């Protein structure tokens, strides 16, 4: 692969803006309050755009079009599930958590359940999933670097890690909030622009649909009424399962929840969800069009399809994987970039690369900040009593950043799964473990410490165990882990654990000792909307 100067220009222009914002806001990151929660002075639009950029990751930008490419139209409902779940956060978590105004994700658990050890318990799944997300963000950044520079994947991972590291090291929450807000706009512009070009190329939505059906007659088929678009979509559990995998994430995932802490007030927290939905929904509409057209674009237009040894889009992606020495499981993750490459428009590719870098870096920064605070301030400081994180918060988080990015870079050389698979696993583990104690802790007086501790511990092991068991015995984490190999049931990412986790928490809370009355008053009743 050769470097296209226009694509390189697009990437450099993006970096110039990002590091310009970082430089302009650098003085704001000198004390703990500014570094951790941006001084709680972020307005609704900026916070909403930053929320969208942080919440949506390379798993969205690369992974969702790749899964539409693989699974067909029924996977559109997964995107609907993600955006449709976002408004829930407005009243469920954004408003009460901003009213409470903590510094860290684990603060609420420690205060509501009245023990510092809850920080350690809820840090366990959060740290595992946080590392997973930073890894997938580095992989995403590396795939875009590979497109820009044309260097082998290993070098791309090193460059991507360095870029993400510098960005976070000098940032803190102020710089990352401001630049992440810009990234939210950049990724949406990229996605919508690409969708318009794709629709224009096919002469409208009818032309796109006709071309897709001519390429794959089963693409728009749903279960029960025709031959399914893919074996995973052969029964309703596949469609509904993908709808729910990421559905509740915006309300309970640590990297979005912490952005509610940074707003000026409760009003701004609620309004920021509206802006995030508006911006994110537009971007997802673009991703649907791109994903729908990916296979037909690659197979009809990509120059490498002229090679007689390459007979399909999947074969082309395998060829590119070998050519660029991409390690591990990454294969279809590159399909969206390959589809855009097929249109032979370097200006479009430069916009896509800038948007892709924006989304990858924003998520890496969001999760690294969460991990920084949990590992430094919360565990070393609050649980184990070290003074260092409180006395020198910036130094502490920067040391943590070095460790986090270093470890994640090592795992990124051989990606352990597709970016969307890594994301799905992280979501399910978090949502079924730390999700119920957060939601019920805010809205139910009877939520108990014992129920919280047991739910987090047991659900983390059950969901991660089922996911890994299905992947290694049935070949995919999307089959029900106890399925008979000859008659597999589709349960994407073992999504049912989210509902089991909720039920498990309720039952345990009903049979265990309630928390102290003053704790319930302060962290449940006082956080309700005023009447």
């Amino acid at each position, binding site marked *: 692969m050769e470097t296209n100067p226009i694509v390189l220009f697009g990437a450099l222009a993006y970096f110039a803006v990002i590091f310009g914002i970082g430089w302009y806001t650098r003085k704001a990151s000198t004390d703990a309050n500014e570094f951790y929660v941006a001084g709680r002075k972020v307005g609704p639009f900026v916070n909403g755009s930053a929320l969208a950029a942080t919440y949506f990751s390379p798993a969205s930008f690369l992974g969702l079009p790749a899964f539409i490419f693989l699974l067909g139209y029924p996977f559109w409902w997964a995107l*609907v599930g993600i955006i449709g779940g976002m408004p829930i956060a407005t009243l469920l978590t954004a408003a009460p958590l901003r009213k409470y105004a903590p510094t860290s994700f684990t603060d609420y658990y420690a205060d509501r359940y009245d023990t510092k050890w809850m920080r350690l318990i809820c840090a366990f799944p959060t740290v595992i999933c946080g590392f997973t997300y930073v890894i997938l963000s580095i992989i995403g950044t590396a795939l875009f670097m590979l497109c820009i520079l044309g260097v082998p994947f290993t070098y791309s991972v090193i460059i991507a890690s360095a870029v993400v590291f510098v960005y976070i090291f000098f940032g803190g929450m102020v710089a990352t909030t401001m630049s992440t807000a810009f990234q939210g706009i950049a990724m949406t512009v990229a996605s919508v622009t690409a969708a318009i070009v794709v629709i224009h190329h096919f002469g409208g939505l009818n032309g796109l649909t006709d071309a897709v059906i001519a390429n794959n007659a089963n693409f728009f088929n749903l279960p029960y*009424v025709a031959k399914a678009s893919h074996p995973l979509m052969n029964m309703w559990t596949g469609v509904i399962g993908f709808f729910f995998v990421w559905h509740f994430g915006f309300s309970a995932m640590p990297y979005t929840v912490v952005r509610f802490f940074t707003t000026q007030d409760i009003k701004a927290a609620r309004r920021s969800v509206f802006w995030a939905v508006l911006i994110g929904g537009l971007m997802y*509409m673009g991703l649907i069009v791109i994903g729908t057209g990916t296979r037909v674009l690659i197979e009809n237009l990509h120059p490498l399809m002229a090679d007689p040894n390459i007979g399909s889009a999947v074969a082309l992606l395998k060829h590119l994987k070998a050519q660029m020495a991409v390690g591990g499981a990454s294969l279809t993750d590159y399909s969206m970039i390959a589809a855009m490459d097929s249109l032979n428009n370097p200006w479009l590719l430069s916009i896509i690369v800038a948007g892709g870098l924006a989304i990858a870096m924003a998520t890496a920064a969001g999760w690294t900040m969460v991990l920084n605070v949990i590992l430094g301030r919360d565990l070393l400081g609050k649980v184990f009593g070290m003074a260092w994180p409180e006395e020198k918060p910036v130094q502490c988080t920067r040391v943590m950043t070095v460790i986090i990015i270093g470890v994640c870079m090592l795992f990124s050389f051989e990606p352990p799964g597709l970016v969307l698979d890594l994301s799905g696993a992280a979501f399910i583990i978090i949502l079924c473990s730390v999700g119920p104690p957060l939601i019920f802790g805010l809205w139910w007086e009877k939520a108990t410490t014992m129920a919280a501790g047991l739910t987090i511990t047991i659900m983390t092991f059950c969901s991660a165990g089922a996911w890994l068991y299905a992947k290694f015995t049935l070949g995919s984490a999307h089959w029900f882990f106890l399925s008979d190999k000859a008659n597999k049931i589709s349960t994407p990412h073992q999504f049912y654990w989210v509902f089991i986790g909720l039920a498990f928490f309720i039952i345990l809370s009903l049979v265990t000792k309630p928390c102290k009355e003053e704790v319930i008053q302060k962290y449940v009743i006082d956080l309700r909307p005023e009447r």
Partner: protein
Amino acid sequence: MFKGMPKIFWIGMAIMYGWCFLFMGLEMTIPGFPLKKFLGVPACYIYNMIFALWIVPTIISYIFFKSEENREALLEKGGN
């Protein structure tokens, strides 16, 4: 459980889940439903890509923050 949660939250949930599962159900019972023409294009672009994905969630999130702001303004007036 969920004591004090504004009623609009449940109304919003009913609209969002109602819309999604109604059309999902129609797709699984009527052959070729996503490709039936509506406003000159396959219907799935209208009810799924535009409405379920963007318009409905945007309207719900708008109603959520606006209704709470209106309610708080009324409370403030009442307090004064």
